[in-house]
């Protein structure tokens, strides 16, 4: 469940009292006025020599047979299983798994610990879109010297691009799971309404309107105003490249491109016609909507199929999976929504053992297969993606379809050149305030894109970046 709860698990924040004084104290704790703060990461791992020379196998063997204690922050459920396997393999390494919260909560705590200079874990889960945000500030260890040569070739190519530095010279994490998009839909509801599965967005729009007419209780899909991860994936799929960073002081912000405007226009029209729902996702009302047929479809990601089985179990056998609708008929373009990796903090005192933990969990065939089949993390390791034990599963929930195989195919349709800003938490938050609000209130989505653009540019400039629009 790694991907879908980002930025919506604010519950933990409630534990922080509302007292202003406490806010001050919090601000004080996380604050740091050390002028050398930005350079402190450079002195992190002792293996981070001037040149990225491979750490020798002897060094690795020695490190792995030395009693070592590692801390691993992640919110993947039951990850202890994989950690137990790792510890059985390397009995001298003692790994403590800590779940400090999901998504935003996790990042807040991680950032506070990194800034405080103590208490940070050795290894932490980081979603793809957040990697550059932690790379800024040199918080992540370059794993290049610690990974065997050719490790990158073992992963899905576009996924590997996501975890590298902006210039491609460094590797910041080992990929864990991904979320290539597809369309999940209720076969029975569409059949009753006499609607074919839409292959293009035009057909999707028509189908959404037709379904409303045939079945006023249902919507073909929900576009939540609180899920910028999904909205960004829709932009990605349309060919928009709204974000970029040169690894230094220049960021690219272009959420008002023609492609993005096309997406905003399309969904804005559907909202204006009440042809789709605009409910916030991943809360109780939304789960109910999936289970009771309010939503006859979901523009989901690869982790969606299994998640849906758990949420809408009563509708088993009535779902199908199809490619995400295309902007031009005949195309085969998908995009990624969600997906995360395990990164080693530059502050780790045991960079070798930490990087081996990150690698082993996400590289050992048995470990990754269990992640895929038991924890439902959609694999990023090619070997697992092709493993019959994964792809050949026939899902009863989907009327016996091989859903995994379908999404494994969609995974090959994802364009690799999608980049991020070094402050994606802020970018998503501002997106919710502008685009998300317009979605929820049925406002002008195209104007909202402009507002998002303006807010991002203002923030970037205020933070000292040079902005290319």
């Amino acid at each position, binding site marked *: 469940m790694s991907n879908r709860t980002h930025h919506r698990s604010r519950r933990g924040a409630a534990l922080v009292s509302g007292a202003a004084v406490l806010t001050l*104290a919090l601000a004080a704790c996380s604050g740091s006025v050390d002028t050398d703060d930005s350079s402190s990461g450079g002195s992190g791992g002792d293996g981070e020599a001037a040149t990225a020379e491979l750490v020798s196998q002897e060094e690795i063997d020695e490190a792995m047979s030395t009693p070592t204690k590692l801390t691993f922050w992640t919110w993947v459920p039951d990850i202890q299983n994989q950690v137990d396997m790792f510890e059985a393999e390397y009995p001298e390494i003692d790994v403590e798994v800590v779940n400090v919260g999901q998504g935003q909560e996790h990042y807040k705590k991680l950032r506070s610990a990194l800034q405080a200079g103590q208490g940070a874990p050795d290894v932490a889960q980081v979603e793809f879109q957040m990697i550059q945000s932690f790379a800024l500030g040199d918080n992540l260890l370059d794993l290049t010297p610690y990974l065997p040569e050719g490790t990158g070739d073992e992963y899905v190519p576009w996924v590997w691009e996501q975890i590298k530095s902006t210039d491609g010279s460094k590797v910041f994490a080992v990929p864990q799971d991904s979320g290539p998009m597809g369309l999940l839909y209720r076969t029975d509801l569409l059949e009753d309404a006499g609607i074919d599965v839409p292959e293009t967005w035009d057909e999707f729009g028509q189908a959404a309107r037709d379904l409303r007419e045939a079945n006023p209780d249902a919507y073909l899909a929900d576009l939540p105003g609180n899920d910028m991860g999904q909205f960004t994936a829709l932009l990605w799929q349309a060919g928009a490249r709204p974000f970029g960073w040169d690894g230094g002081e220049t960021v690219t912000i272009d959420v008002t491109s023609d492609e993005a405007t096309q997406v905003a226009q399309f969904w804005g029209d559907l909202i204006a016609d009440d042809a789709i729902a605009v409910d916030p996702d991943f*809360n109780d009302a939304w789960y109910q909507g999936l289970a009771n047929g309010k939503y006859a479809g979901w523009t989901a990601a690869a982790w969606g199929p299994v998640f849906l089985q758990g949420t809408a179990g009563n509708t088993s056998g009535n779902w199908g999976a199809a490619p995400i609708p295309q902007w031009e008929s005949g195309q085969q373009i998908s995009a990624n929504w969600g997906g995360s990796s395990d990164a080693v903090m530059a502050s780790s005192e045991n960079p070798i053992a930490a990087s081996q933990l990150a690698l082993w969990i996400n590289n050992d065939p048995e470990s990754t297969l269990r992640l895929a089949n038991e924890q439902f993390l959609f694999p990023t390791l090619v070997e697992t993606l092709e493993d019959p034990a994964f792809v050949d599963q026939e899902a009863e929930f989907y009327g016996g379809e091989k859903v995994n195989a379908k999404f494994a195919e969609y995974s090959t349709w994802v364009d690799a050149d999608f980049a991020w800003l070094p402050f994606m938490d802020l970018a998503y938050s501002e997106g919710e305030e502008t685009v998300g609000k317009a979605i929820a209130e049925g406002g002008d989505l195209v104007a909202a894109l402009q507002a998002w653009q303006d807010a991002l540019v203002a923030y970037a400039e205020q933070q000292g970046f040079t902005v290319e629009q």
Partner: protein
Amino acid sequence: MSTKTTAVPSRPTQAPRKRGASPMKRRQNAAAYSMVAPFLVIFVLMLVVPLFYAGYLSLFQDRLVGGVSFVGLENYVRALQDPSFLGGVLRMVKFLLIQVPIMLGLALVFALVLDAGILYAQRFVRLGIFVPYAVPGVVAALMWGYLYGPDFGPAAQIAEKLGLPAPDFLSNEWMLGSIMNVVTWEFVGYNMIILYAALRSIPSELYDAAAVDGAGKVRTAWSIKIPSIRPALILTLIFSVIGTFQLFNEPNLLRSLAPNVIGVDYTPNLYAYNLAFINRDVNYAAAIAFLLGFVIMVVSYVVQLSAQRKERAA
């Protein structure tokens, strides 16, 4: 309340010592200081130091590119022009003017009714009103989320039975009222207990005198009870003023239900929190928090001053 000073021994008139107190007095002082020391240490470490540190932080700017620089009062100037901050403060003023009178009015009525002893299940009712205060915020938010829910909440279901449109408690227009309702539900009991305790400490001679004068229950309440608990009322009022401006938990929890209605700047406290942890602008957040503290100080002072003036006039 001042303690009675009957135990003070009459001091023999003797020439004042040249300096300092007697050894006895000094020993007493030392004992007293050692007893408050644990409090003082924690107070200084947990409150005074962070406060000064936050004040210090608020004078700097830490940019993602370019690092830290001293900017003086620039953060404060920025805050005073920041529509997010000003909007949040205004929203809280509105909240204060509507919610606090309702909550304190209800608390006073409950306290008076309980004090009058005209209920059968006295203890049960008292506990019942107080229980919401003991419900953890997370649980309360889950519960209200269900009650407010537009699809399966009871209000929605009743409306559907009656063929009416479901009231959208979580919409833009209703949200502030919905939060007021939750906060009132949560804190009526707390304020009631304070007022009730104050009522119990009114000397019963006053009631006897009132009874002799022929005052009924309502008259007694109005002319004796309420004036007697004026200090407690002012106390609850000031607590409520402070609590209102620091509103954080309830909107933060309801965010998951209506993320696009409750923005990152819905209340000033929420805004400061998000500035620190999402915008990574700890310095500006510190300035916002300081300004908010200043607003609270001013409003509390005005409330206290006007209450005192009324008292003097009375």
